[in-house]
């Protein structure tokens, strides 16, 4: 599989999970929240400082339909991670001319 096709497939899968699959995720408290409640320190949690943000709690403010609101928030959050992460990694990557210690086997002619 060509690198471009692999990356695109991966991105589509990630956006589908964030945008569609997440609607079917369990809404029960997670392990830490459950333990906090069980052992009695859940109430020490403060209100989140960004609780009024447009994507707070994985819901898009102003979108009433729950499925659409959650899906849109998931997709926007995932794209934010892709932009910040992708940009950062591209910026700090090793360029040609840097110390070339790339020992990875080049078995695919189309690897770039």
């Amino acid at each position, binding site marked *: 599989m060509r690198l471009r096709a692999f990356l695109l497939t991966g991105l589509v899968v990630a956006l589908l999970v*964030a945008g569609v699959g997440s609607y079917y995720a*369990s809404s029960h408290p997670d392990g830490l929240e459950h333990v906090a409640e069980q052992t009695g320190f859940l109430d020490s949690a403060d209100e*989140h400082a960004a609780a009024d943000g447009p994507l707070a709690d994985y819901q898009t403010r102003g979108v009433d339909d729950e499925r659409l609101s959650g899906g849109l928030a998931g997709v926007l959050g995932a794209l934010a991670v892709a932009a910040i992460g992708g940009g950062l990694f591209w910026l*700090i990557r090793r360029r040609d001319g840097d110390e070339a210690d790339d020992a990875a086997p080049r078995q*695919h002619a189309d690897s770039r």
Partner: protein
Amino acid sequence: MHVPDGFLDAPTSVATGVVAAAGVAVALRGAHRELDDKTAPMAGLVATFVFAGQMMNFPVGAGTSGHLLGGALAAVLVGPFTAVLCISVVLLVQALLMADGGITALGTNITLMALVGVVVGWGVFALLRAVLPKRAALVAPAAAVAALLSVPAAAAVFTALFAIGGTVPVDTGAVLAAMVGWHVVIGTGEAVITCLVVGSVVAVRPDLVYGARPVLAARRLEIRRPGVTA
């Protein structure tokens, strides 16, 4: 396992913030060596995938759920230094945009999920890779074991932080038992997801799996051997 604001007192939050900043600084230096034109976009994809995966809470019984942490997964796919940055970017976006994980607790969450998750995940994986036969089919199972252990490890470190800087006096033993117990179960889900994802990438593009490189190098030698001996 996203720690909200208020669970830990200010000195502990500042201390974990310093640890997190130091860890990210080290990771930035190390990631420069791991990333090139091919693996940089792969790392961006891994971060995006971990964000999506963390939204998929799966039930673990008794009205409780768990989700992927992704430290071991990212470390095996793109290398440990880059993995720390992947998880840190995910946690940053979650804290600032999704109101998931406190803002003053960001250092704590990076320490637990990015640093402990990756260090334990990568450590276990590297150990297994050293003792197991060099076969591509063993990369995903080794990653799964690493993933399984990384989750209760992060839970145990949270408990230690809570014992030091918890804002409510709760018996540490009770918190430890509950945290580790639940997170062994959640770690099983982490192991399944990690095994499936790493296995899929190894099947399609093994050259993109950082943790599989020594295995691939060994395989390349095996193929050449008949030509040499013949």
